[in-house]
Every structure is written in C-alpha cells, then in structure tokens.
C-alpha cells in the first residue's frame, strides 16, 4: 500500500469529521442584526380599544416579550396554550403584535378594501380569536399593513422578541415557543436581565 493512495481516504475522513460536527449545529439559527440594539419604536392602535394607541416606550422599565401573532397563523395556535399558561403564572408580561391580520390571510382578498374596513375586520377577527383561545397578552396592538413587522425584521409568524428595561432587543425566538425553549433560553435570559437591572 503506497502512501499516496491513502490521500483520498484521509481527505474523506477530514470531510466526514466536519459533517459530523455540522450535525450538532443549527444553520437556521441566524443571529438577528437587531440583537442588543434599541427596539424600533412604534405607536399603534390597540386591538381591545381601537380608538386608543399604545407605544413601545410605555414598557420602559420592564423586562417583557413582544409576541408576533395573527389569527390565520397555524403555528400560533400551537404556542398559544403555553402563552396562556405563562400569563396565569405571571412569568413575564407579553405584548402581542397582531401582524397583518387581514391582508396576511391568504383566504381573504383585500383588493379594493379601504383601510378603515380592513381595520374593522382585523379588530373583529383578532378579538374573536382571543375570546376563543384565551388572551394571554397585557394588550395587543395592530400592525395592519405589516410596517412595524418590517422594522423588526419579522419574516415568519410567530416570532417573539425579548426586550429589556432600556427598550433594547436582547433575544429573538423564531417559530412557536415550546416548553423547552421557554425554560432553556427565554426564562433564564429574563431572570438575568431582571437581576442586571
């Protein structure tokens, strides 16, 4: 056996080592450029009282979660019971960002619909959904056209942002929250931020 004929084998083993290591990584875990940056400010109409607005800075001094949801979002239904339980145990305040309630729903066409009509429909749909599934939120605000979603870099629903006392985004969770991610990542970070402040 000549040494040079072993070269392909050794190269392959090197590659296999990397592949094995690659299995332990999660390529989907993309760091958000917004982490540790001030959360984009917003002032939006409240879902429960559409004639009133709510602004991000009203949460200053609190460690809290911003949860992006919509009634058409199937995965939100999956995480919702957990949010309700979290609210019962008063773990951490959660503000809901109701995202593109009407135009995000593929089943509805907003062609030719006035913004007022769309808002009214969003209020009706959002409130009904919370009545059916329980309302775990401190309150929810309505991002009718998805503009605030763009500021936050939302590219799928649900997503959850952890925001600290100074209004900085400290963590972003993509997809539905699971009991594991709540205990493993979100709550430890919440505790840490509370202690720090």
């Amino acid at each position, binding site marked *: *056996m*000549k040494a040079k*004929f*072993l070269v*392909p*084998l050794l190269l*392959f*083993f090197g*590659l*296999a080592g*990397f*592949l*094995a*290591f*690659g*299995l*332990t*990584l999660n*390529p*989907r875990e*993309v*760091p958000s450029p917004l982490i540790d940056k001030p959360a984009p400010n917003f002032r939006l109409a409240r879902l429960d009282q559409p004639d009133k607005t709510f602004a991000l800075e009203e949460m200053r001094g609190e460690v809290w979660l911003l949860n992006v949801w919509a009634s*058409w979002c*199937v995965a939100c239904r999956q995480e919702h019971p957990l949010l309700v339980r979290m609210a019962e145990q008063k773990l951490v305040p959660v503000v809901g960002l109701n995202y593109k309630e009407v135009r995000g*729903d*593929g*089943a509805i*066409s*907003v*062609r*030719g*619909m*006035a*913004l007022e009509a769309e808002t009214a429909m969003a209020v009706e749909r959002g409130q009904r959904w919370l009545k059916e599934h329980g309302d775990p939120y401190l309150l929810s605000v309505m991002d009718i056209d998805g503009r605030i979603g763009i500021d936050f870099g939302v590219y799928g629903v649900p997503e959850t942002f952890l925001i600290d006392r100074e209004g900085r985004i400290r963590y972003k969770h993509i997809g539905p929250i699971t009991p594991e991610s709540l205990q493993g990542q979100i709550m430890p970070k919440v505790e840490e931020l509370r202690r720090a402040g």
Partner: protein
Amino acid sequence: MIPELGHFALILALVLSMVQAVVPLVGAQRNSAALMAVGRPAAQGQFFFILFSYVCLTWAFIQSDFSVQLAASNSHSETPLMYKITGVWGNHEGSLLLWAMSLSLWTVAVTVFSRHLPDAFLARVLGVLGLVSAGFISFTLVTSNPFERLLPGVAEGRDLNPLLQDPGMIIHPPLLYMGYVGFSVAFAFAIAALLSGRLDAAWARWSRPWTTVAWVFLTAGIAVGSGWAYYELGWGGWWFWDPVENASFMPWLLGTALMHSLAVTEKRGAFRSWTVLLAIGAFSLSLLGTFLVRSGVITSVHAFATDPKRGLYILALLVIVIGASLLLYAARANKLMGGGSFSLVSRETSLLANNVLLTVASASVLLGTLYPLFLDALNLGKISVGPPYFEAVFVPLMTPVVVLMMFGPFLRWKDDDLLAEVRRVAPIFVASVAIGVGSAWAVDHLTWRTVLGLSLAAWVVLASLRLLARRLGERAGAAAGSRLRSITASWWGMWLAHLGIGIFIIGVTMVGSLDRHLDVRMKEGQRAELAGYTFVFRGAVDADGPNYDAARGNIELVRDGRVLGVLDPEKRVYRAQGMPMTEAALDIGVFRDVYVSLGEQLEDGSWIVSLYYKPFISWIWAGCVLMGLGGIFAAADRRYRRLAARDAAAAVGGRVGAAA
C-alpha cells in the same frame, strides 16, 4: 391494512437485499457457482417487494387515507390525482423510498443486460449493489418509515407543498434519482474490479454504457429542475447555486470526467487507477448530496424536515460505504499502474487535462457548498456563499475545458504533432474570437464576459463543423451516404454533446448579459415598456382551482403596434396551507422569452407586476437536450452489443475450460 402490507414488503426487501449483499460475495470468493447464482433472483425479488411497497404507499395517497402520517402531511382530498401520485415523493420518507426503488431498478437492469459478464464479476457487482441497497432500505425503515400511522386519523390532509404542484415536479425527482443512483452501477463495477484485481479494457467497456445512461438521466434531471425553478419560483432565474442544486451538479461534473476517463481506459488501458477513483468519487458525491439534502446541515430553499438522528445514520452509511471503498482503493491501486504510454501531445493528455479541470471544478463547488459549515464548525462566524464565488471560480476553470474539449478530438491517440494541429485549428480559433467580439458589439454589450462567452460558443460550433468535415473527408472517394454511415453512434454522441455545450453557452451568456427586468405598479389599462415590448394591463379576475384560490392577471403583449398575445400570470393561495404562490406566464420564443409574474395587490387596487425579457434562454435547455441526446447515441453504440456477444462467448468458453 394496505399500508401495513407495504411496510411488511419493505422489510422483506431489506432481508432480500442482505441476502443479495452477502451470498454472492461469499460465492465469488469461494468460487461457488451455486452461491453466486443467488444474486440474480435476490435482486429481482427485492425489486418486486420495493415496487409493491411503493404501490401501497401511492394507494394511501390516492385514497386520501389520512390515518397514514405521510399522506396526512402531504396530500389533501382535493389535490388533483396527478399530484396525489407525485406527492408520494414530495417529502423526505417517500423520496427515500423512491431512491431505494431506483437503485433496485438499476440492479435489475444489470441482471438483465449483463448476461455476458463472467459469473464471479456479476456476483461481486450485485453484492456491492445489495450492500448499498441494504443501507438505504434500513435507513428508511429505522429513521423514516413512510408507513407510520397517525391514530386517530385526521379528517383532512395538509396538502402537498404548492411549489411542488407542478408538471416539472412530476418528472424532476425520478430523473434526478435515476441519475444519482445510476452512478452506483459504475461504482459497483469499479469495486468488483478492485476485489477481483481485474481492471482491464473489458471492465472499462462494461462500465461505459451504464455510466453514460446514468449521466443522461442526471443531465435531464438537472435540466428539468432548472426549468422548474425558472417558471415556478417566479424569480426569472434558472440556476441559483443553491446547496441542493450543487449536490446534483457535483456528481454531474465528476460523472462527466468519469465518462471521458473510461474512454481512455478502454481504448488505451491508461488512467486505470484514476478511472476507479472517479467511479468511487462520482457515487460518493451522490451519497454526499443525499446527506446534505436529508440531514439539514446546510440551509437551503429545498430543506425538508431535519432530524439529527437521520443525519447521523446517513453519515454513518456514508463513512462505511465511501471509507471502505477508498480503503480498498488504497490497498489495490498500486497494482493498477502502467497502461499504454503516451506523449505530451496526444488525445490522452488533452482528456487528462480536462479530467483534472472537471475534478477541480467539482471540488470547488464542494468547497463553496460546505464553506459556511467549515467556518461555523471552526467558530469563525456564519456566512453564506453565493453566486459571485461560484461564477468567479467557475468561469476560469471551464474556459480551458471548453477550449480543450474541441481541440482534443482533433488529436490522435498516443502521439501527435502539436504544431501541425495548432496550425490547422488556428484559423477557427481566430475566427471564433472575431465572431465573439463582433456579436458582442452587435448586441451592444462589449464586456469581457459577453465576448468570452460568445467566442467560446463560436469556437465550439465552428470546431464541431470542422471536425465533422474532417471525419467525412477521411474516406475520400467513397459515396457521401457510405461516409455518413461509417461514422459510429458513439462518435455522433460525442459530437452532439459537445455541440450542446456550445448552444448552452450561447444561452447562458445572452441571458446573463442582456436580460431585462422591471417591477411596476399597474392599474387596469396602464402600460409599461421593456426591451421594445409594451405590456398593457387589462386587469385581474378570480380564477379558483380545485385546491387553491387565485387571481389571474391579463396582460397584453404588444410589439410595434401588433398584439403578440395575452399573458395570464396567476397569484394563487393554496387553501390547505394558506401558502401564496406565483404562477408566471411566459411567451416563449426561439430567441427570447417574455416572462411575467403577478406580485401583491396594493390598497388602491393596482398590482405589482414583474416583467422580464430573457434573450436566448431556451438555448440553455436546448443545449442540455443535445447533451442528453449525445449520451443516448454514445450508449447505444453497436460496438457494445457486438463485443458483449464476444465476451459472452468467451465466458462460456472459459467456464467449459474450467470444468475440464
């Protein structure tokens, strides 16, 4: 009940694949005819049971049996029948079953078409294929059982991913898998030859048609996939250097090198150890591609559900199959030295150079695909490698390949006079560059890329014509008809496939340089201009399908005051998953496509419309068709059948001799 039968049949197939793996290999080692003879029926029985299992799974989809987990997640009662059938392979579990079925189909083809092979050799080939098959069927059964029940069943399924509900998707995966998996035959031949120590011209000749047919499937599969991406994704592109595309392109590059290396080994006995390594490499890259797609180590638009257990299993499979064959190679390769000698200027050298370049190209695609993973593993950050890297690496590597590809066939085997040959092709070369510069100037796009692309294309076309003229001139005095007939099918195959590359380059260059794109807001009655065409938006209407709601735009395509046609792109929302999809509309022409896709509707009732002008894009696929045709011609050469008959006679003679 039927899903359970399918599950059971798959288990039986696994048992048979193990029999097929072990018994003939032992038989070949002990020279026992009885044990060796087990291979053939075991392989055929295995195919029967996999097919049965596959039909059972398809039945669950057709019947909308949503107590089967896979059908519940990938089908819907309103899905058209065609997409219920293709939905079987539009997911991880089903596509693995398809993988195993195509491997089994190739194995059966070997048992049918290789009657002339010596018994011991065939036994080893079947044994190796059985081992691979056992690995994949057990992977399917252990980690990804397609017959998993969902109890209690659900009333309605989640439907097939709408992106996959398309005619292109009906044929793309089967073609691609036939190509991927087809390299397993060349691989098994190489391993069998290494085991027996018999790596000669006959081995290369037996491998050649199998390799070529697998390559044809892979070429067709990649081309169809690229066409699907072009008209279905609605982005107007045809190749994205996505990891999954790369996973199919790497074996294609190495398979191309293998076909050419096999030619040298057959004709001249040279490059034997290199050819074996390529045969192992091409199949290894197919396996690696399967790993990359199935394990989720690389993010991709194609990513299926990821599960670390699956990744680990298939990685272990990879290490066993590739590691063992490379170890065998290391142990035996020094016996493969030698072969026909050749001088620096010869067809061998030009083929070797092309081989090396193709291998380097394949390695650089591999590097680009895995680079994010390497960096992440070494904790150097997260990056993604995009088209600029691949284009920067690929163009300089492929340019000499294309130049040599047309120069090589002019050279004689063994030794040739470089100066005389160069003098002969120099006028063509100069003319090609002139045509390249001239046509780039004519289309008003005088960049080095356009000039390079068009010059290379002209070089391929002109040199092909020159080569044909020379071939026809070889038998001076004979009638034209007999001159044409004297050319073998494999020569035509080479000629067509090389010409196909030229046509392909024209398409790629023209689309890359001259395509135009415009996103506009359009209201009913509004017009937009692009590349000399006028688009008149005539509004959008509802056009609901069986399992989706849609809006269909109506856009008149006008040129020079004449209406060329009406384009009707659709924006669909598939009900079951609430997933929006664009369905582009095309006006296809020989020299250009006009491509329109419908975007979002805005509050004021206007629509975002994407307009594309794609010159010569059909030439990309026409080039692929020519390459595929070339492969078919090459594989159908009469020579293989004639020599197969001779080998069969020799094998019978040998058996009689051994008995006596």
